[in-house]
């Protein structure tokens, strides 16, 4: 079976589980909304200062929500040792990684579709002309982060210190992509046009390609030993 077909089956299984329980979307979505709400209340902002504060709040919210979401998604695999059912299948190891990344991205994108407009409302940012570039930025920033966090979560199947490992290894690794995302968002909020942030988008795309390619390559080794 080819990688994409098997990855699709893995992702579909995750989404099917989530559609049934809505456990991940509810818990992580609520958490993300709470962070944005608290941020907008804690930092007393006006239309002049809010474009400087909003990007940080938005990305912190996405980051923590993403980590929670991916952790929960892999916890489902550890329950009953279900992941070994996948590992016993004659599918390329990379397809498990790709499938889990795709499902986590789909769930995170769903939350971001709610989070981005909410952030703009709370921080009084005029959406005209920046909503779609902002969504594109958020999606690009999420791909690199989710693909890296998924990879380390996969390693963590058999590691007791999996949460520590996620924080210690993932955050420094994805820091360049997150910084680029936050800076580009700040510029967009400050009135930059889509053309002006195109350079940041290219950097993010390059990070995404690098992270995903590395994940696909290394996952076959990381998922082969128990």
């Amino acid at each position, binding site marked *: 079976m080819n990688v994409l077909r098997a990855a699709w089956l893995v992702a579909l*299984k995750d989404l099917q589980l989530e559609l049934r329980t809505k456990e991940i979307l509810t818990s992580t979505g609520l958490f993300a909304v709470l962070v944005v709400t608290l941020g907008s209340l804690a930092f007393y902002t006006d239309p002049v200062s809010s474009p400087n504060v909003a990007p940080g709040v938005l990305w912190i919210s996405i980051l923590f929500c993403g980590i929670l979401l991916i952790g929960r998604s892999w916890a489902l695999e550890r*329950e009953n*040792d279900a992941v*070994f059912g996948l590992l*016993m*299948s004659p599918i390329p190891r990379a397809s498990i990684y790709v499938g889990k990344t795709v499902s986590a991205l789909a769930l995170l994108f769903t939350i971001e579709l709610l989070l981005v407009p909410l952030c703009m409302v709370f921080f009084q940012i005029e959406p005209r002309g920046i909503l779609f570039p902002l969504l594109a930025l958020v999606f690009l920033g999420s791909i690199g982060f989710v693909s890296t966090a998924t990879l380390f979560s996969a390693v963590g199947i058999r590691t007791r210190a999996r949460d520590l490992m996620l924080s210690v290894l993932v955050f420094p690794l994805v820091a360049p992509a997150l910084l680029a995302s936050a800076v580009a968002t700040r510029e967009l909020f400050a009135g930059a046009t889509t053309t002006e942030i195109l350079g940041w988008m290219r950097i993010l795309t390059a990070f995404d390609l690098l992270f995903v390619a590395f994940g696909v390559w290394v996952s076959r080794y990381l998922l082969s030993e128990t």
Partner: protein
Amino acid sequence: MKLDFEEVGVTDLGKSYGPTLALAGVDLRFTAGTVTVIRGANGSGKSTLLWLLALLAHPTKGAIRYGRYGVAHADDLRGRIGFVAHQLQLYPGLSGRENLVLAAKLQGISYANERAEALGEALGVGEYWDRPIRTYSRGQAQRVSIARALLHEPRLLLMDEPATGLDVKSTDSFVGLIEQEKQRGAIVVVVTHEAKFANAVGDRILQMERGRIVEPAP
């Protein structure tokens, strides 16, 4: 690629987890149409041997051959191996049917739904078929786990304490099922503590101690 083999051989097979020696050099051959039962105390290395045969772990030393194929063909060989592990390896949020259909699709079975349906019926899981696994008793879930291992008619069938949670009637029909697999030409390896079950299914019974086969003497 569909690989096939008539024999599985392990040579000087060893596995360590850090300083803990789980398997200390095992030499064995398993042939098609035979049921080998492995018994032994907790920690004697039985389950480790099964995990190595299932290609879920790499040996620290020694080698495993599946006919003329080695572990370099692991991805393809997995399509010929069925494993009933001590943990159920099923998704608790999915129903028995969904778990089996997913496994069948991952095995590349084109008639996944029909195959899952047929096995579910054969193992008598029909009445709770569409309920989530988390609502099953251990015995009910164990039957689904066994069905999952048989989906793709594996050449090598590995079972770790497969009778756990099964009632007397289910255990009897399970013994019949193992006999069918044997007649089909499967290489069956069963790890169990239950002497009665071991005697009922085993063509040969091996005893393990501290990572070695001690009975019959090598």
